[in-house]
């Protein structure tokens, strides 16, 4: 791999995997997609590999989600028991349960807000985020503020069962 891309790989790969994981919620699938994004970057040699990678990764994840959603519609014939909703008190302390609740809290965000939040968490700058999402740079901060607030509030609701308590304990 050429040097510049090797650097990008080293510094960006974990963030890209994390970014993808919050979209596909499957650690191995996230790695698969990250690898594929990098191999495409090798083929295309974009000017701004970092930003380009996240655009490509987001598109791949979105396409995959659409395909999975289509297939799930075909499976509506499957009879099944309704899920148990809500964690039991014992489960509430479980890592897995927390992860699921964060995921569900993320789902309450609008796609735009979620995207901006995940991109920031992946390490992109406001400039990169603006370029990727089409937002004005000045709007990135506002979007992040809204997304963070909604994420914390939604998670707090899920954890305490009450509406948006600001005292909801989110310590891991």
């Amino acid at each position: 791999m050429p040097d510049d891309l090797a650097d990008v790989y080293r510094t960006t790969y974990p963030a890209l995997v994390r970014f993808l994981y919050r979209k596909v919620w499957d650690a191995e699938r996230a790695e698969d997609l990250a690898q594929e994004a990098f191999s495409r970057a090798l083929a295309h040699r974009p000017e701004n590999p970092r930003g380009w990678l996240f655009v490509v990764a987001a598109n791949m994840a979105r396409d995959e989600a659409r395909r999975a959603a289509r297939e799930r519609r075909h499976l509506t014939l499957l009879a099944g028991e309704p899920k148990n909703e809500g964690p039991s008190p014992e489960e509430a302390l479980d890592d897995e349960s927390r992860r699921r609740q964060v995921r569900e809290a993320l789902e309450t965000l609008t796609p735009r807000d979620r995207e901006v939040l995940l991109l920031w968490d992946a390490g992109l700058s406001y400039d990169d985020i603006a370029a990727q999402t089409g937002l004005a740079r000045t709007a990135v901060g506002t979007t992040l503020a809204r997304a963070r607030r909604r994420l914390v509030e939604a998670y707090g609701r899920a954890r305490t069962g009450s509406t948006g308590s600001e005292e909801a304990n989110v310590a891991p």
Partner: protein
Amino acid sequence: MSHLDDGMLHAYLDGELSAVERARVEAHLAECDPCRERLAEERSLIERADRLLSLAAPPVPAALRRRRRWWVPSAWAASIAMAFIGGWLLRPRNPPPPVTETAEIRDAAAPPAPQLAVAQESGGRPANAERRQASLPRRAPAPMPADTQATITTGAIPAEEQQPVVRTTPRLTPGTSQPVLRGAAAAPEPAAKVAVAQAPAPMVSRQALAFGPDGEIGTSWPVITAAPARNLLGADLVKIPGLPVRDIRQDPRMNGQVVVDQEVADGVVIQLLQGRSDAYGLATAADSIGRSSEMSLARESSLKRNVGPLWVRISGPLSNDSLLKLLQLAR
């Protein structure tokens, strides 16, 4: 400068303001108590959000290198398992003698058929049907051994092969009465033990090991993450592509066996039981088939079948249509 809005505060806290903007913000903050308070609030909000996002990090540290060796056979195996489920429903009720089936499995080396089809089985030849049902893998890894395909279809097991098991079960809520399911799940249990008895001495029947008295796989098994699971298996996990992974669990009774739970649809979970090949024997499911065939096809609530490396079980009121859809999904 007028009071600072949220966007400005967050941009400041994120370090994304230009030097000029930053100076102006700090000048305002020096003179404005309410804005300083809001700054502290927003800072703690950002910290909380960051903590939450880190909770939703992938459970496995990102590996810089990914082995793809087992991707194809796993996807293929899953689809074969699915196909087999469909075919098994239609099969006549004559179980093959275990020895014959084993021998047949060992000798087989059929290439995969290009079509994934529900098998129309002749009596007692599930291995044959399975070979016809092999479907093309989604991706072809470079170093795939030639006998891997044959293995998946026929059950011959080289030392390093991984043996996936596919099982679908609706998520049963407590208190749900599914007497047919329970009863059906219980029925094959004796068959499992019988199969153990008939298996060659040095080999261990997976059936006896994999199922507890309630017939469920691993609902109480400890959850593990993907990295230790891979170490345990010595290979990549078998998954059905496109489905989210709910969790991965380790069999506490037997080294080298894990189950991967994937969500097929609301209330339906597929469990792929897989492990090192040396942990499994060539236990044939002849007797479990015989037992299971006692259940009525129309109300088929539990299938159990060990076909070479594939160990298949379906629990729940699935119709043939649903199974066909599952086949398509697995493909």
